[in-house]
């Protein structure tokens, strides 16, 4: 008996890696539905789309890693069902794989466009390496690009297309960009920065339909206001849905993801879930949430390995995120929420500044642009539970980096 991990992304492979480095002696099998060696997704919407974009994907682990650590990688194989009574995973071909512990690291799937014309050639989604390869070559010939959705992926793609000289229009049904992740203040600054770079942003405007051009490929995007935009390439980044159907079919509790406890166990204690697919009680949000990020995938992967090895500690790592949009490097520490008091630190005109989000007078999240030192300072302070006063943070010359150096050092020396 052994550990079986369904999913070969950051979270799944981290569970396998951390189990071995934590001393786990029995078999470890990773079932990954994509073929080949599991790879890093974040570069696919960033460096990979640049004109000189690297054609070789970056593997999450080398082929030799799996042999050296005695981890069985079954790639290009889909898990079809889980029989919890028999502690068995049934693969698409009918093969059965027994487990002592099972980990769902099944990630998310792109929310699909459902409007008329969504299946026209030239309309792209972005998730997998083949998706990125197709988009990379389509961008080389594209002149007019319409991006549906002003989230991280949409704006990363928009910035990459603009850098290649394309005319770029972004349609977003919400009133601002990245509304789910960013404070209105930072969202407004990003909207301005992208507009100055020549990207046409249309808020409060969703997609209604695509219409073909003479050659049968996509030619027009029609928005919910009736406006028509010429397009020879469309990319949609309209969010994701958790891959929790397999878990639900196995009788596990689901609801916007696979429901787990603070130690990342599902309603069946021999079954865990990690990463994008897991709905967990967050100490930072004060609520049950699902987080889509590299940090959450890797830190939960490490945590699930510790749970399997016998720990009952709650997962409480600080969430952090990043997005590279052209020359804009956005970094977020913590989780902001609607209604947070926001304080500006630094000068937005300089293109380097942070928005500090306070809740009940305490620092809850920090959004930074082109200021990695401030971001790292914020991570240290938030992880240590140290908060400046809002008035202190608003003063000229305030620095999270300096505060972190002073206060975290002081608190750890006590």
């Amino acid at each position, binding site marked *: 008996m052994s550990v079986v991990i369904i999913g070969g992304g*950051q979270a799944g492979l981290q569970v396998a890696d951390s189990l071995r480095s934590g001393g786990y002696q029995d078999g470890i099998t990773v079932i990954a539905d994509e073929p080949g060696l599991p790879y*890093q*997704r*974040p*570069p696919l919407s*960033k*460096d990979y789309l640049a004109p000189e974009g690297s054609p070789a994907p*970056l*593997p999450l*682990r*080398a*082929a*030799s*890693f799996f042999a*050296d650590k005695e981890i069985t990688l079954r790639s290009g194989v889909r898990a079809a069902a889980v029989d919890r009574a028999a502690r068995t995973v049934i693969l698409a071909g009918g093969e059965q794989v027994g487990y002592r512990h099972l980990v769902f690291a099944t990630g998310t799937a792109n929310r699909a466009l459902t409007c008329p014309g969504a299946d026209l050639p030239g309309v792209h989604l972005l998730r997998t390496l083949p998706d990125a390869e197709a988009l990379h070559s389509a961008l080389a010939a594209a002149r007019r690009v319409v991006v549906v959705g002003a989230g991280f992926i949409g704006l990363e793609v928009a910035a990459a297309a603009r850098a290649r000289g394309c005319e770029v229009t972004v349609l977003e049904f919400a009133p601002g960009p990245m509304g789910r992740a960013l404070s209105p203040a930072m969202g407004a600054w990003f909207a301005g920065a992208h507009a100055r770079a020549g990207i046409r942003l249309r808020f409060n405007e969703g997609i209604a339909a695509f219409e073909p051009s003479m050659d049968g490929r996509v030619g027009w995007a029609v928005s919910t206001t009736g406006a028509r935009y010429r397009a020879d390439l469309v990319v949609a980044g309209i969010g994701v849905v958790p891959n929790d159907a397999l878990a639900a079919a196995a009788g596990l509790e689901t609801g916007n993801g696979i429901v787990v406890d603070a130690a990342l166990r599902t309603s069946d204690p021999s079954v865990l879930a990690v990463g994008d697919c897991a709905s967990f009680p967050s100490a930072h949000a004060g609520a049950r949430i699902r987080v889509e990020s*590299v940090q959450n995938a*890797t830190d939960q992967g*490490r945590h699930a390995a510790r749970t399997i090895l016998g720990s009952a500690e709650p997962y409480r790592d600080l969430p952090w995120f*990043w997005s*590279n949009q052209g020359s804009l*490097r956005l*970094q977020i520490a913590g989780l902001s929420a609607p209604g947070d008091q926001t304080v500006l630190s630094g000068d937005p005109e300089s293109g380097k500044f942070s928005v500090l989000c306070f809740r009940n007078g305490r620092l809850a999240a920090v959004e930074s642009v082109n*200021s*990695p*030192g401030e971001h*790292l300072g914020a*991570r240290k302070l938030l992880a240590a539970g140290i908060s400046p006063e809002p008035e202190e943070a608003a003063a000229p010359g305030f620095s999270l*980096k300096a505060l972190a150096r002073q206060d975290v050092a002081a608190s750890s020396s006590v």
Partner: protein
Amino acid sequence: MNTVTFIQPSGAPATVSVEPGTSLMRAAVTNGVDGIVGECGGQAMCATCHVYVRPEFAAALPEPSDDEEEMLDCTTAERTELSRLGCQIKACAELDGIVVDVPAEQV
């Protein structure tokens, strides 16, 4: 092709051969060198590809960018004057045969 040698904290060396322009992080990750993580995919966002570049190669290194400079303040193992992020250093003729030490901890 250029070679890069990674020395583990145990003293064990691993020499890999890569195309010019390949970052040291990618060289390590694609060849299964222990101790180089590259969690963010080479975006200078995570500081998990920290290396100590042997001093004899210091003169041929590009200056760290402001971003790298700031990220180096966040490494898990102690930062020294030899510290760099592997994702920001690319193999090239001037750095052929570069030797770097891998820190004991990255996360």
